[in-house]
């Protein structure tokens, strides 16, 4: 809320600045025209131009009209006969004032209409992205649901005919696929939580000690994949990062999980965090099969075609998981990237801005 107000004040200040500086420039230029070049007749045209400029580059009608009024008064007072006094009786002065005001209103109207059009276009793009995502998700949801529904039906209807081994097998499939569904839904929830209906990103950042997040990540990762070796390398000193800890935890877990599920041939996965200036850089690397170069470009877009990428076409969810990662990181003002070499492994890298002010007592 406070942030919104601050942005508004900034916008107003910017508009006023544009208006004042244009007027001052025009005033100086008018002086040159009159005193040096002796072509005072063009001063009105000059101010009309300034009104146009201000109307284009500011929002709403106020600044344009204000500029028109000030410009008209200036021209009247300083540049037209009688000099240095107001004269509202001369018909050409009134004409100039009318032209300036009309121009400002018309320009502002056009500018506003243009901005509305741009917004509608952005919303439409967002809608397309959303529809793509929805399609990818529905497709991805169907597979585990088929397993869960089919396996449980099979067991319910043929309970006495299945042997213990078969039952166990079916139950295990149900468990694994529902576990996957849970993760999927968590990701979707995160997206809806931070993207509002207009597609802008909203999160609440609180200062968090890095170690807390890493601690929680490791515990969850070990619980999910007890067999996988995870190397950790984080700074010894206390690092404080303003963030939504739950979401950042999800980013790290998504990337780690990606490595486990997709990087075939992987023997180790490493989580490295280091401080570089005012940034904390997170690097998650594996030594698996890598991702094909062409696919890396849109890896964060959450498109369903990602499921066929790399050397692994067996599992889903990577697309949506990474799209969530990039959404979360950009909402934090950070950046995420991915580098991969065939058969050498993949490195996911993202940074967040740190909070330099750490007091100890």
């Amino acid at each position: 809320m406070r942030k919104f107000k601050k942005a508004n004040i900034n916008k107003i200040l910017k508009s006023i600045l544009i208006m004042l500086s244009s007027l001052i420039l025009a005033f100086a230029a008018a002086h040159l025209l009159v005193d040096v070049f002796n072509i005072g007749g063009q001063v009105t045209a000059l101010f009309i131009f300034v009104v146009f400029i201000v109307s284009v580059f500011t929002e709403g009608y106020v600044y344009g009209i204000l500029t028109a009024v000030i410009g008209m008064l200036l021209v009247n007072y300083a540049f037209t006969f009688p000099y240095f006094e107001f004269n509202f009786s001369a018909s050409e002065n009134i004409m100039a004032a009318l032209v300036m005001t009309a121009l400002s209103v018309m320009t502002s109207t056009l500018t506003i209409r243009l901005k509305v059009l741009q917004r509608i276009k952005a919303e439409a793009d967002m809608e397309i992205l959303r529809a793509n995502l929805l399609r990818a998700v529905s497709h991805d949801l169907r597979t585990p649901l088929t397993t869960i529904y089919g396996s449980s039906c099979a067991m319910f209807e043929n309970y006495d005919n299945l042997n213990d081994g078969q039952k166990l097998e079916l139950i295990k499939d149900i468990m694994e696929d529902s576990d996957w569904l849970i993760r999927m839904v968590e990701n979707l929830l995160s997206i809806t939580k931070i993207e509002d209906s207009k597609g802008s990103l909203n999160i609440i950042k609180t200062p968090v000690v890095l170690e807390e997040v890493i601690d929680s990540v490791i515990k969850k990762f070990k619980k999910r994949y007890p067999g996988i070796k995870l190397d950790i390398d984080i700074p010894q000193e206390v690092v404080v990062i303003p963030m939504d800890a739950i979401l950042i935890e999800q980013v790290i877990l998504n990337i780690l999980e990606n490595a486990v599920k997709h990087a075939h041939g992987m023997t180790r996965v490493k989580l490295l965090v280091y401080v570089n200036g005012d940034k904390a850089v997170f690097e998650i690397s594996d030594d698996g099969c890598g991702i094909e170069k062409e696919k890396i470009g849109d890896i964060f877009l959450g498109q369903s075609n990602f499921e066929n990428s790399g050397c692994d076409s067996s599992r889903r969810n990577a697309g949506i998981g990474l799209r969530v990662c990039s959404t979360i990181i950009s909402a934090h003002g950070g950046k995420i990237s991915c580098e991969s070499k065939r058969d050498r492994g993949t490195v996911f890298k993202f940074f967040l801005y740190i909070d330099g002010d750490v007091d100890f007592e």
Partner: protein
Amino acid sequence: MNNKYKILLVEDESHIVNLVKALLELNGYKVISARSYVEAITLYASYIPDLVLLDLGLPDRDGTELLAEIRKQDSIPVIILSARGDEAEKVRSLDMGANDYITKPFGSAELVARVRSALRHSYQIGRASSVSDGVFRLDGLMIKYDSRQVFLDEKEIKLTQTEYNILALLSEHSGKMLTYSAIIKAIWRECCSDNSKKKLQVNMANIRKKLGINPGESKYIINELGVGYRMNGENR
């Protein structure tokens, strides 16, 4: 054991009721289930349960109202069943006096462990970690309250005043989830702000360092991201 613990399960989704009931009965608890606020109030009065498992989304009223109603008269353990992502809701119900929460969807082992831990914590029966003669013991960790000393595997750990206060506070409530704001209020007597949360986390990081705990390996203090801390209630 014929004197089973009675658990009141307040939940309106019948599938979850089936699941929780089956799990808890398998583990030797008696389960009474209520599907609404009104039913829960009636059953609570007639059965006097030993623990309440409470889902916050009830059809007739908000679950927190039931929590407030229970806390008016009783201190019996209440565990909240809540959805993930609702950290604010968890914090609110913990600050209103809930003992713990379980995030849906939950695994069977987790549910049973939380219930057992809450019962132990509240009834001090078979509690492995204990405070006796002003000394708290949990595995290799020992806190002597009188002399304000902390020992790890017989070796004394030097903590600052604040670090000791935090550790002692957590140990006094071992097994219970303490929210950031509850800890901050107790230690610094101030309101929970971003700055005080940061202060608490920095102190916590130092405590872990002094106890020689690497991230992901803490067995004494459990860190619940975005909510608070809990001292482990049981020896392992």
